[in-house]
């Protein structure tokens, strides 16, 4: 049995690709409408919760000493993590010239942008006085104060705004030639909209010359950015002295976890999406096999990181570190600790089997486990570490309240709403990149 998936022979012509992708923008199916309105419903629930928080303050969120970072920061890190797969697939795999990225990169890029957009809401929700969020930015103000640039929290503001801007730019930039292809296929008012969005793109040799070059540079700039964003997020924790946070392993550990969770979410989204949009012949076993292998790799790095955290806790001889890790597995948050280990370290190991990698049902179920496991990982790192500090008399637990769950559900609604809207408005499969892989016909026959 072949372990390495063969690149499939594309039998479609260029005209087929345009037709099939433009067809995804037609009349929505019932499944799509149901999914969209469910997302809107969840979003409204979150918005209502936020209104109550705005009126009454963060007291509803269940904070109590010593835990003042809980579900909102957990969910912030969760969504930022999700936002890593997109740019990894679109930029890093572009530089590596991986052919399998073409069919899935647009959907993962869109997922990235909307995930980061979702994540960016959380620090603002978390600060309590949401209307003062701009205090984090360096602007001349009446207090004559500047942000503390030695703090990872301020680095994070820069890292996330940069990541959001660059990944949005990357997504929009890649869309322009595809929007032009849609413009040339549709009629009526839609043509006007797409004409405006295509920004005068005609696909001339001069346009492609500058476009392709700049795409390469964007990919080269985005590559270190992907690795840096979650590293900076990890330093929010690692540069403090809380036991369970103060580790040099944090940056690579967080980056691997981010990519793992991102690909988990990609699988959760594209498995149903390809069916709803009738793209089964474009997103095939070949793509799922490769995505699953990437999941296996990053899942195994996480497995190693979990093991290494426990080993170092024991080997360091530091009582506080040892206690924290003992309590992760057998303390009051044991359920979260074990959810994280089982869902991330163990479930990912099932992907060693090719039968599981190419079976959509099993992959979908595994992807749900990954999403759950990665949320718990952040919950464990944040809440369980804070629950036991250096002073045992101050130890306490936090139980998430309706205000936490409401905002969490709302974030899924907010994300789903944008993603679904995007999937119907813009080509979810990159038309021009797929065409680049299909040889054009020749009068002399054969291939180049």
């Amino acid at each position, binding site marked *: 049995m072949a372990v390495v998936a063969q690149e499939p022979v594309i039998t479609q012509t260029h005209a087929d690709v345009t037709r099939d992708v433009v067809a995804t923008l037609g009349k929505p199916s019932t499944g799509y409408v149901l999914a969209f309105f469910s997302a809107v419903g969840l979003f409204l629930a979150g918005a209502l919760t936020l209104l109550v928080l705005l009126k009454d303050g963060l007291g509803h969120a269940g904070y109590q000493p010593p835990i003042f970072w809980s579900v909102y920061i957990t969910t912030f890190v969760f969504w930022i993590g999700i936002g890593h797969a997109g740019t990894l697939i679109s930029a890093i795999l572009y530089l590596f010239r991986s052919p399998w990225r073409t069919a899935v990169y647009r959907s993962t890029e869109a997922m990235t942008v909307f995930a980061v957009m979702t994540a960016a809401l959380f620090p603002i929700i978390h600060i309590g006085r949401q209307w003062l969020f701009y205090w984090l930015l360096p602007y001349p103000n009446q207090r004559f104060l500047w942000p503390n640039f030695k703090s990872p929290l301020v*680095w994070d503001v820069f890292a996330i705004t*940069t990541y959001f801007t*660059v990944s949005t730019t990357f997504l929009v930039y890649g869309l322009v030639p595809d929007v032009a292809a849609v413009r040339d296929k549709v009629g009526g008012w839609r043509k006007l909209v797409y004409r405006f969005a295509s920004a005068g793109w005609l696909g001339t*040799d001069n346009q492609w010359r*500058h476009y392709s*070059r700049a795409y390469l540079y964007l990919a080269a700039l985005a590559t270190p950015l992907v690795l840096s964003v979650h590293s900076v997020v990890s330093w929010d924790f690692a540069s403090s002295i809380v036991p369970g946070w103060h580790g040099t392993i944090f940056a690579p550990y967080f980056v691997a976890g981010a990519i793992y969770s991102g690909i988990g979410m990609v699988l959760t989204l594209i498995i149903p999406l390809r069916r709803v949009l009738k793209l089964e012949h474009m997103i095939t076993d070949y793509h799922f096999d490769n995505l699953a292998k990437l999941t296996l790799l990053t899942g195994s790095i996480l497995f190693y990181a979990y093991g290494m955290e426990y080993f170092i806790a024991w080997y360091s001889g530091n009582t506080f570190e040892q206690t924290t890790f003992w309590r992760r597995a057998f303390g009051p948050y044991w359920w979260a600790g074990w959810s994280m280990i089982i869902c991330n370290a163990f479930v990912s190991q099932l992907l060693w089997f090719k039968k599981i990698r190419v079976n959509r049902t099993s992959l979908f179920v595994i992807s749900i486990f990954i999403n759950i496991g990665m949320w718990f990982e952040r919950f464990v790192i944040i809440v369980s570490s804070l629950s036991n500090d250096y002073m045992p008399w101050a130890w306490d637990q936090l139980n998430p309240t309706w205000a936490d769950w409401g905002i969490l559900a709302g974030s899924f609604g907010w994300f789903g709403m944008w993603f679904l809207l995007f999937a119907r408005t813009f080509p979810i499969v990159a038309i021009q990149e797929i065409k680049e892989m299909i040889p*054009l016909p020749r009068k002399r026959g054969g291939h180049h």
Partner: protein
Amino acid sequence: MGRRPKVVPGVLASFEQIDAATDAIKALRAGGHRGLVVYCSHPNHELEEALETPVSPVRLFTLIGGLTGCTAAFSMTIWMNLDWPTLVGGKAIAAIPAFVVPGFELTVLLGALASVLGVILLSLLLGQRGVMYDPRFSDDRIGVFVPAGAADAPALERLFRDAGAVEVRHATP
């Protein structure tokens, strides 16, 4: 809406086969024709080779953007710390290692934005206007446009047909 650009007179040929298009481009270039506009739905190396396209100067935008970002970030963080000196964790007031992160972020941010600005400027704003186009060029056809007066048009049409064009149209002002 702006004014409709003036139509560039010339001949536009549609090709279904890539080697037919490159043959036509090579023949036109050998015949001394300049100012060709070649349409394709995707970037194609064979067309680039036939046109002998020079490397895009967009890299200059990337470089200047990146360097501006880097300089701006370090100057901003150092100046702000000197303007409001606070001792944090025993670090120096202008603690360069701590400012590497904002430095890196702004390098990437301005480098990326400048690259896109370069493309907008070079290919959309400074690009040729009023050249005949066909919607099938974004689908499965390759287009080659050559600016020419009415006198040269029949000879050019013959050249295109000989190379294997499936359709030839004339643009008249």
